[in-house]
C-alpha cells in the first residue's frame, strides 16, 4: 500500500508539532523517519495511525484520501502502529490480547484462534506461548505479539515507533528479519528512530524531520554526517562554559544500578562538584529520567551508593534527600509540580519550613509577592496557579524550590518557554551555581545543553556516555545522541 501524507499540520496549543509535513512512502519498502526529540516524528505517526487528527492536511492510501477518527478505523483501512511502550493488557493472557479488537463473534473459538496465533508467530520466527500472561513477557515478546495481532487484523502499513529502545540484541535481530520478510510480502513499513546506524542498516530511504518540518530526504546509504546535519541543523554551536571554576565535590553516585520494567542503567558512577552544571540527554526514556529520580531519592538503586555532601543517603526516603539539600523539579508543571486549585500564596504557605499550627496568611502573601517580584511572575498572590501561563508556571515552580539547595535536579527546566523566559531562568540558575549549588538537568535541546552545561551525560538505551561540554560541537553531541560510541 502506498502512503502519502500531504501538508500535515498539527498544533498543541501554540506549539506546532507538525508544520506542513509532506511525505510519500512507496509500497513494499522500509522507510525510515529520523529526528531528534520533539522533531514531530511521533505526532506525525499518531496522525497517520488515527490516534490524533490533523489540524490540516491530507492522508492518502493508494491514492485515495482517507480520514480516520480512531485507531480502529485506521486499522480497518490497513494502517497499524506499534507504540514505543506496548499498548497491551499485561494482566491478560497472550491469546486474549491477540483477540482484542479482532473477531466480531459472540462466542470465541479459542482453539481456532490459538492455531492462527501459532501459525503467524512461526512464520516470523517468534516464540509466543498463547497461555502465558503478558506481564511475564519481555518487551521484545510483547512487541512480537503486537505485530502479529496487527497483521492478523489485516494491516498492510505497519508503523514502528522506536521499537529497539528496550529489547535485546537477539530480539532486535528477530525483529529486523521479520520486517524484511514483511516488506518482501509487499507490506509497507515506517520505522521511526533516532538511531542512525539502525536506520541506515535497515531502511531503503530516510526522511529527516526537524522542528516539525521535513529537513530532507535521502537514500539510507548517504553519509552519516549528512543525516546528522539534517537532524540538528547547520548552526555552529560549541560548548561555552569553559572558564567556570568549580568547588569541592558535593554529590556522588557510586556504581549505581537502577531499573524499571523496561530499562536498566547499570554501574553508573558520577562525581559532581559545587557550582557544576551537568546536562542529561538522550531519546526520551533512555534512562535519564530514571537517573535523575534516583538522585532525588524517588527511585531506589538496587546496587551502589549515593552521597550528598559526605552523607550516605542510599535507600533513604525522599524526605531525607530534601533535608540534605536536594531540590527536585519535575517536568509536569500541573501534574507533579504545582497544585491546581491553589493560589500562589497557598503554595508559599505549603512549603513553609517548621510551620506553626495556624497559617500566617499575611506572611504567606508577603512571601508570594516577594517571589513574584524576584522571579518576574505575571500574577498576584491570590492567582490560582492553573490560571498562569506556562512560562509563569515554570517560574513559580522555580520560586518554590528551596532558596539555597546543595543540589538542584530539574527535568526540562525550560521546555516550551520563549527565549526571554529561558534566558531569565538560566540567569537565576547560574546565580545559584555561583553560590555553590550543583545542577543536574534533563534537556532535549542540544544547544541548551552545550550552552549551559559543564558536562553532558548522554543516555542511549540505558547506557551512559560522559562528554565534556567545553569545546564540544553540536555535531559531536548529535552523533552521540544518535548512538555513536555506545558499541
Amino acid at each position, binding site marked *: 500500500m502506498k502512503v502519502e501524507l500531504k501538508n500535515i499540520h498539527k498544533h498543541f496549543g501554540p506549539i506546532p508539532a507538525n508544520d506542513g509535513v509532506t511525505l510519500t512512502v512507496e509500497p513494499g519498502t522500509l522507510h525510515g523517519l529520523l529526528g531528534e526529540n520533539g522533531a514531530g516524528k511521533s505526532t506525525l505517526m499518531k496522525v497517520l495511525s488515527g490516534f490524533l487528527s490533523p489540524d490540516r492536511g491530507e492522508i492518502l492510501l493508494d491514492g485515495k484520501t482517507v480520514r480516520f477518527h480512531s485507531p480502529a478505523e485506521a486499522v480497518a483501512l490497513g494502517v497499524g502502529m506499534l507504540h514505543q511502550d506496548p499498548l497491551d493488557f499485561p494482566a491478560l493472557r497472550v491469546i486474549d490480547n491477540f483477540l482484542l479488537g479482532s473477531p466480531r463473534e459472540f462466542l470465541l473459538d479459542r482453539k481456532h484462534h490459538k492455531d492462527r496465533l501459532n501459525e503467524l508467530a512461526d512464520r516470523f520466527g517468534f516464540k509466543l506461548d498463547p497461555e502465558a500472561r503478558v506481564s511475564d513477557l519481555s518487551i521484545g515478546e510483547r512487541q512480537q505479539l503486537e505485530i502479529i495481532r496487527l497483521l492478523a487484523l489485516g494491516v498492510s502499513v505497519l508503523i514502528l515507533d522506536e521499537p529497539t529502545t528496550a529489547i535485546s540484541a537477539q530480539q532486535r535481530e528477530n525483529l529486523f528479519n521479520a520486517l524484511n520478510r514483511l516488506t518482501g510480502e509487499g507490506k509497507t513499513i515506517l520505522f521511526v528512530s533516532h538511531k542512525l546506524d539502525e536506520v541506515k542498516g535497515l531502511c531503503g530511504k530516510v526522511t529527516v524531520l526537524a522542528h516539525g518540518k521535513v529537513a530532507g530526504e535521502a537514500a539510507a546509504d548517504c553519509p552519516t554526517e549528512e543525516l546528522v546535519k539534517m537532524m540538528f541543523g547547520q548552526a555552529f554551536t560549541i560548548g561555552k562554559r569553559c572558564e567556570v571554576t568549580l568547588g569541592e565535590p558535593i554529590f556522588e553516585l557510586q556504581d549505581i544500578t537502577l531499573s524499571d520494567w523496561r530499562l536498566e542503567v547499570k554501574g553508573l558512577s558520577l562525581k559532581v562538584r559545587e557550582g557544576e552544571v551537568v546536562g542529561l540527554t538522550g531519546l526520551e526514556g533512555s534512562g535519564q529520567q530514571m537517573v535523575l529520580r534516583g538522585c532525588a531519592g524517588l527511585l531506589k538503586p538496587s546496587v551502589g551508593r549515593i552521597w550528598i555532601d559526605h552523607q550516605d543517603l542510599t535507600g533513604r526516603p525522599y524526605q531525607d534527600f530534601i533535608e540534605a539539600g536536594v531540590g*527536585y523539579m519535575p517536568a509536569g508543571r500541573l*501534574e507533579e509540580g504545582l497544585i491546581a486549585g*491553589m493560589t500562589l500564596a497557598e503554595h508559599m*504557605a505549603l512549603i*513553609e519550613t517548621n510551620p506553626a*499550627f495556624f*497559617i500566617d496568611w499575611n506572611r504567606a502573601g508577603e512571601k508570594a509577592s516577594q517571589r513574584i517580584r524576584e522571579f518576574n511572575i505575571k500574577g498576584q498572590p491570590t492567582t490560582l496557579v492553573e490560571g498562569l501561563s506556562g512560562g509563569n508556571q515554570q517560574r513559580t515552580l522555580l520560586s518554590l524550590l528551596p532558596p539555597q539547595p546543595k543540589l538542584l535536579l530539574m527535568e526540562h527546566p525550560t521546555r516550551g518557554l520563549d527565549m526571554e523566559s529561558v534566558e531569565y531562568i538560566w540567569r537565576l540558575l547560574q546565580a545559584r551555581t555561583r553560590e555553590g549549588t550543583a545542577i543536574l538537568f534533563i534537556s532535549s535541546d542540544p544547544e541548551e545543553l552545550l550552552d549551559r552545561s559543564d558536562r553532558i551525560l548522554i543516555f542511549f538505551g540505558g547506557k551512559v556516555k560522559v562528554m565534556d561540554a567545553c569545546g564540544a560541537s553540536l555535531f559531536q553531541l548529535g552523533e552521540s545522541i544518535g548512538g555513536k560510541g555506545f558499541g
Partner: protein
Amino acid sequence: MPAAPACFSLANRSEAKALDNRWIHQTLLLRISAILMALLLSAMIFMVLSASPLDAFSLILYGAFGSWAKLAYVMTTWAPVLLCSAGLLITFAAGLWNIGIEGQIVMGAVFATGLMQALQGSLPPSAVLILAGMAGLAGGALWGMLVGGLRRYGNVNEIFGGLGLNFIAGSLTVYLVLGPWKRPGIGSTSGTEPFPPSLWLPSLKEFQASPIEILLGLMAITSVAIALRGTHFGLQLRAIGMNVRAAFLKGISVDRNIFLAFGLCGALAGLAGWILIVGTSARHNLFPLISSGYGYLAILVVLLANLKAFWSVPISFFFAAISMGSLQLPLQRQLDSSLGGVIQGMLVLSILVIHGIRSRWFQREG
C-alpha cells in the same frame, strides 16, 4: 509610579468580583434547579404509589416542624449528622472516601457503652458521661485509623476497607448484645439493658433536646472549617486531596496526614456514636444497627454541600428534618418512612447530574 499598580489591581479586583458574582448566580441557579428536579422526581414516585405528593410533602413538613416536641426530635437527629459531616469534611478534603464512617459510629457507641457499664455506679454520673464521650472518640478514631492502616500497609482501597470494617463493627454489636452484654435473663437483639436517666445528657425542661449535643455538633463543624482554611495541617490535607503526587514532591508526609484525617473523622463519628447512646432521644442502650445510616446520610450532606463546611450546616439540618418528618408517612398514610431517604437521595443525584451536565457543557465550549 504607585498609581499604575493601584489602577491595575483595582481593575483586577472588579474583574474578580464579576467572576465571583457570575459563579454565585450559576451555582445558585444550579442548586435551585436541582432541588426542583428532585422534588419533581420524588413527586412522581409518590404518584406511582398513588399518594398525593403535596399531601406527602406537607406531612413531612408537619412531622418535622409541627410541634415543639417534633422540632426537638429533629434537633437531636441533627447533632450526630453534623458531627459526621464535620468528620467527612476532613477526609473528603484529603480526597478520601470514608465509607467506613458507619462502623466508626458503631465503635464509638460500643466503646462508650463498655465504659459506662464498667464505671456506672462507681463514679459520679457526670464523670461517667464525660469519660464515655472520650471512649467514644477513641473507639471511632481507632476504627478510622484501621481504615487508614489497611490502605497504607495492606494496599486496601479505603472504600473496601471501610465497607469491610462496617460489617465487622455491626457483627460485633450483635455478638455483644446477645453475648457478654446481654440483658439479665433474656438476650435479644433489641439491645443491652438501657442506662438509667442519670446517665442521659441533660435536656431543657420544655424542649426535649440537649443543647450539649447541638453545641458539640456546631463546634465540631466550625473547628473543622477553621482547621481546613487556617492551619498548615488543613492546607496540607487539601494539597493531598488536589494533587497527591505534587504534595509528596513538596515534602509533605502524605501517609501521616492521611492517617490523621481518618483518625479525626473516626473520632467525630465516634462522638456521634456516644450521642446515640446518651443523647436525649436515644434509646440509651447499645443495639445492632445503632448507626442507623447517619454516616451515609452525612456523606450525602457533604456531597450536596460541595464539600463546603458552611453549607453542610443548613443541609444537614434539612436532611434531619426530612428523616424525622417522613416518620409521619407510615403513621398517617400507610406509606413507608424510607420515602424520606428517597427524597434525600434524589436531591444528591440531581445535584450531581446537573453538575456533570454543566461541566460537560463547559468542556465543549472551552
